[in-house]
């Protein structure tokens, strides 16, 4: 959908000529003339205005009644008065009405000091009340959910939270109950409002009715400072503002960036800040002595690490993940390649496509932006679950469908939470993304769809329908896909099929293209910083090396002697848990940067450097759409924690490589010099909203030639279940160490669950909640059954939590499910 062009109109507000965008509402138009019109219910992010609170009544010449400025579009020549006696009295009246049932308990209310109701009462209220009747009473405070408290007496019934639940998150849980003055916000049957994006209602509430249970009574607005940074808990990299009191993070709020997050946060992003101050956090360097990790001095930890690495020179592997910054990735690359003569480093969990193919996938001309998702004619969600993999993108996709008529098509193995919004949903066998793309490619090119669709276990008619829709919806098509699609031994072929599809749909154009969701928060940045086998900074050529799976095998086989883990624990996050356990056990040295001792590190790390939390970090990360964003420290580092760029440089120095780094900014400067398409960026440019590098001139440094469709290999057929089940694995949004150590979020921690179709469950004699053993070739994990009506028969989907990655391998496989 092409973005609407903005035309300006001229109107008069309070005697001043004001230019405002056509069709904007008066409330917004007035801002162009520095006139503030008070509002409660109006929030453009929630969709069309509802005109419920009546706070914004103004006088428009030619219209006898006062009009709500929130719902009156500006027009050329319109004459508006916001300061007349009539308007003043009407606005005073609304404030008086809103306050008659409000408890006025500002001194004990969390919102006090940052409360729109307070501000508007001061600014536009009459200052007195004539109301002497009894106020309306409700029981309070109540837990609307374990995360959100509701005080119905403070509620002014502006509908924001209800509209949010109904129209933005589309979880349809919050409703208004009862009628008239008895109305109140709640859920059906008082079930807790638990949903991945529920916390946003706290920020939306213009009074103290909805408050964070984690933040309640922790601080007043005059105690706190706000510090803007980036959430690096997932690839969405939402822009956030830390609320800091006495060097502690007490709250996370959205820092509205329409190009990234649209001002929303998921509950993980909103509440997992608690991990920053969790007792479980590692705050001192540790060295394994007599089988256990013990705190030691920095000197000793650095010396031991450097000594172990130097001993294994030429035989060191490295992995980087999660919140590692571009600078850290770059320094890790230099440490490995230059100081230790090693080329075995990876930031992906499984082997990906070749450097050439990966470059083609990253071509700036083929990159789609986050807003493109909203304004596209059609979006294909391919082999990923945005709700789990990049949560905030899920809301953007819903918005595109709801507000701009975007056509959504979904092609996944596991039923998607976006299916109800999709025009077409196609299912294929777990791990058969390549075959599905081959079928789609054939459908778009007019070739043989049936054999590839058969190999994918997909319905050929549905693939054709999906292809037709993508062709006919319009020119702007965005493909949102997950890293797993091109991971594993057939990643190269899958990537080629994807590039074929892009070429056939002509996606090298503005408003269209690819948006990849990497499997770690800064996956794109780490790749661009050169944390890849065979690719240096900026996808430059580098000596070939082992990928993550190769590193595991080489460690287990004794070919590699040491492993450097930058913010990742492969035992927990990588496929083939068993191989990784063996690899770490065999390694002579495992040096890790970690903030929490997850299972692999607890058992096998020999040196642990305390990692910074995202609230303490400085540096840059790169959003999946290429936006380079800047992290700024919000608080000081606790205990003995040191900057990780500094730790990497110190280790490198001890291993014989001098990298002059007086400050963190110097590391950024080195990175920008090393990555050709980052050339010319500066931290100052990134200050507020970041900069999307594919839009800059320097992007030509990566420009890959247009892809010409190639002949595809015949994809291998998905294994036939034959009584067993095809295994699909996925990582739920709550499967993160930060969730487990945050007291507020702990109740949501992911558990090992296996989703079965009703037919398979019946055949196996299993019901939801049953404890089962899921196994393949002697390796098994315990899990709890969830029967889902939309799971395709013959497939089982395992949540990657509590060691369930023991079963995933990056290759399609069959599993047995038996009662435990």
């Amino acid at each position: 959908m092409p973005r609407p062009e903005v035309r300006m109109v001229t109107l008069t507000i309070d005697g001043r000529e004001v230019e405002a965008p056509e069709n904007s509402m008066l409330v917004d138009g007035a801002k162009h003339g520095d006139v503030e019109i008070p509002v409660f219910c109006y929030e453009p992010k929630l969709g069309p205005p509802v005109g419920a609170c009546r706070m914004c009544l103004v006088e428009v010449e030619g219209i006898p009644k006062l009009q709500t400025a929130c719902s009156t579009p500006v027009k050329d020549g319109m004459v508006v008065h916001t300061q007349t006696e009539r308007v003043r009295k009407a606005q005073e009246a609304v404030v008086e009405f809103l306050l008659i049932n409000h408890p006025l308990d500002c001194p004990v209310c969390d919102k006090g000091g940052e409360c729109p109701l307070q501000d508007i009462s001061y600014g536009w209220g009459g200052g007195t009340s004539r109301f002497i009747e009894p106020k309306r009473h409700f029981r309070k405070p109540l837990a609307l959910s374990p995360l959100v408290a509701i005080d119905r007496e403070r509620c002014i019934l502006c509908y924001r939270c209800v509209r949010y639940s109904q129209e933005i998150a589309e979880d349809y849980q919050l409703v208004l109950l009862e009628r008239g003055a008895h109305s109140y916000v709640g859920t059906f049957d008082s079930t807790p409002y638990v949903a991945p994006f529920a916390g946003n209602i706290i920020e939306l509430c213009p009074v103290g009715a909805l408050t964070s249970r984690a933040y309640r009574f922790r601080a007043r607005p005059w105690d706190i400072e706000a510090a803007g940074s980036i959430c690096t808990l997932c690839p969405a990299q939402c822009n956030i503002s830390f609320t800091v009191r006495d060097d502690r993070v007490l709250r996370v709020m959205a820092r509205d960036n329409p190009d990234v997050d649209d001002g929303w946060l998921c509950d993980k992003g909103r509440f997992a800040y608690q991990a920053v101050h969790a007792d479980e956090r590692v705050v001192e360097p540790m060295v394994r002595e007599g089988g256990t990790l013990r705190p030691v001095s920095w000197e000793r930890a650095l010396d031991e690490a450097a000594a172990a690495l130097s001993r294994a020179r030429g035989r060191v592997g490295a992995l980087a993940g999660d919140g590692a910054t571009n600078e850290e990735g770059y320094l890790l690359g230099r440490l490995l390649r230059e100081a230790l003569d090693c080329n075995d480093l990876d930031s992906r969990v499984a082997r990906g496509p070749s450097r050439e193919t990966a470059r083609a996938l990253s071509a700036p001309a083929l990159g789609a932006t986050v807003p493109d998702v909203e304004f596209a004619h059609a979006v294909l969600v391919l082999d990923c679950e945005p709700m789990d993999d990049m949560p905030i993108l899920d809301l953007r996709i819903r918005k595109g469908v709801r507000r701009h008529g975007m056509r959504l098509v979904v092609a996944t193995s596991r039923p998607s939470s976006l299916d109800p919004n999709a025009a077409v949903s196609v299912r294929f066998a777990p791990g058969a993304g390549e075959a599905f793309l081959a079928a789609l490619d054939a459908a778009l090119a007019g070739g043989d769809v049936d054999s590839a669709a058969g190999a994918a276990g997909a319905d050929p008619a549905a693939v054709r329908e999906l292809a037709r829709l993508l062709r006919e919806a319009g020119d702007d098509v965005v493909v949102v896909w997950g890293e797993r699609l091109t991971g594993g031994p057939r990643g190269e072929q899958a990537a080629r099929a994807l590039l074929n599809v892009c070429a056939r749909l002509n996606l090298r154009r503005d408003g269209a293209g690819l948006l990849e969701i990497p499997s770690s928060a800064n996956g794109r940045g780490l790749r661009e910083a050169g944390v890849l086998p065979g690719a240096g900074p900026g996808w430059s050529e580098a000596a070939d090396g082992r990928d993550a799976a190769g590193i595991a095998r080489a460690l287990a086989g004794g070919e590699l002697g040491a492993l450097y883990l930058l913010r990742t624990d492969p035992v927990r996050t990588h496929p083939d848990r068993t191989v990784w356990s063996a690899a770490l056990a065999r390694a002579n040295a495992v040096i890790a940067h970690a903030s929490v001792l997850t299972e692999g590190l607890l058992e096998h790390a020999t040196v642990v450097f305390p990692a910074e939390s995202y609230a303490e970090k400085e540096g840059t990360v790169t959003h999946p759409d290429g936006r380079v964003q800047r992290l700024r420290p919000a608080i000081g580092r606790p205990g003995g924690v040191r900057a990780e760029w500094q730790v990497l440089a110190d280790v490198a120095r001890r291993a014989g490589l001098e990298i002059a780094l007086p400050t963190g900014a110097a590391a950024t400067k080195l990175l920008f010099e090393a990555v050709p398409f980052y050339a010319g960026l500066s931290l100052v440019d990134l200050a507020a909203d970041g900069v999307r590098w594919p839009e800059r001139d320097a992007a030509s440094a990566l420009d890959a030639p247009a892809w010409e469709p190639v002949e595809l290999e015949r994809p291998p057929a998905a294994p036939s279940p034959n009584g067993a089940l095809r295994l699909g694995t996925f990582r739920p949004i709550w499967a993160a160490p930060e969730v487990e150590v945050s007291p507020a979020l702990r109740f949501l921690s992911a558990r090992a669950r296996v989703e079965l179709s009703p037919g398979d469950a019946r055949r196996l004699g299993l019901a939801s909640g049953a404890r089962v053993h899921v196994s393949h070739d002697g390796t098994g994990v315990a899990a709890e059954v969830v029967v889902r009506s939309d799971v395709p028969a013959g497939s089982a989907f395992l949540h990657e939590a509590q060691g369930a990655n023991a079963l995933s391998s990056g290759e399609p496989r069959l599993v047995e499910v038996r009662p435990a």
Partner: protein
Amino acid sequence: MKLLFDRVDEPGLNTIDVYRARGGYEPLRRALAMRPDEVVAQIDASGLRGRGGAGFQMGKKAAFIPKGDMDKFLVCNADESEPGTFKDRELMQKNPHQLIEGIAIAAHATGCNRAFIYIRGEYDYVADILDGSVAEARAAGLLNHVDLVVHRGAGAYICGEETALLDSLEGKRGNPRLKPPFPANQGLYQGPTLINNVETLSTVPHVIRMGGAEYAKLGTETSTGTKIVSVSGHVRRPGNYEIELGIPSREIVYGLAGGPAEGRRVKLWFPGGSSAPVLTEEHLDLPYDFDSMAKAGSMLGSGSIIVIDDTVPVIDVAKWVAKFYTHESCGKCTPCREGTRWTLAMVERMDRGEATPMDIEIMAGVQDQIIGHCLCVLGDSMAMPIASLVKHFREEIEAHIEAARARREGIVSPDSPREQPTEATV
């Protein structure tokens, strides 16, 4: 002159055979032979004004419905919930085919292919009658051009407000929508929608039968035609009467309905349902039509006259009005939700003897703060009659307050110390 109520008590009129035998569905046949815009032109020429309350010209409304080939909806508002209004019930109960024919004609005129009768849930037995009649009309091939469904509401006054009705019909909570967009452009399921009251649509066959110009000769220049008036309250013969618009109000209250009982006089009357500002005895000589009522500071509304005689204290009337609208306020917009509750609390306090005449000022002020500031007209529907009661009967209310206070203070034992206002309590 009787049109809508012509031989309304004829046995079996609710069956299609009897209705047809006296010429029913003949206007539909004629209308279907005309071009849609010709039918609209006839309705427009008749000057027929909406009988649901707002009095908007039906011809104008029908002309707002966009032309073109899309799903268009016609909704008959049968959620007759205004206190004192019971005309639609009798029209539907006794002559359902007249309404169905009106819907069929209007649907043809505006190109609506789907029609709904949204009837309040309390009229369950009437809905049963309509169900039967719709089935008869469909079987007779009279509804080939429109799909007509009878939908029962769940019992909320607000669902008579057209946009709340549409939300309710869509299966949502019945709350009014912001206007614009008006239903003619974006109504039911976001499609163009014509909404009219039962009586308005029941009049349509007569307009077509007589011709618009001929119909317009009835009544006054700006209030054409006949109107069913529901008369209730202190009259000897309450009920529905069909009158020609413009006859003196006294002729309805006294002539048709018999006036109050012997020895009593009309103290006040609501000319258009409980939401109309009240008038007094002196206004009884005004002609009963849209403009005269508006000029007198009230409105014809749904055409329901509620007569209150001199045995009733004004404060009781105010309490009854405030209670009804407080109960029925949907709660979506602030002035109505809070203003109705506050007003009721004040009126009750006045009656309990816990008020002073100063509270009348506050009450009147609160009404001013509601009127014209709400999302829909429900808030005004309480505030306007309450304000009119204060305007016409301020002295009586003052006296009532003082008397109630005296009574209440008399109850207090002379031994108990009188509470003196101190600095701390002021």
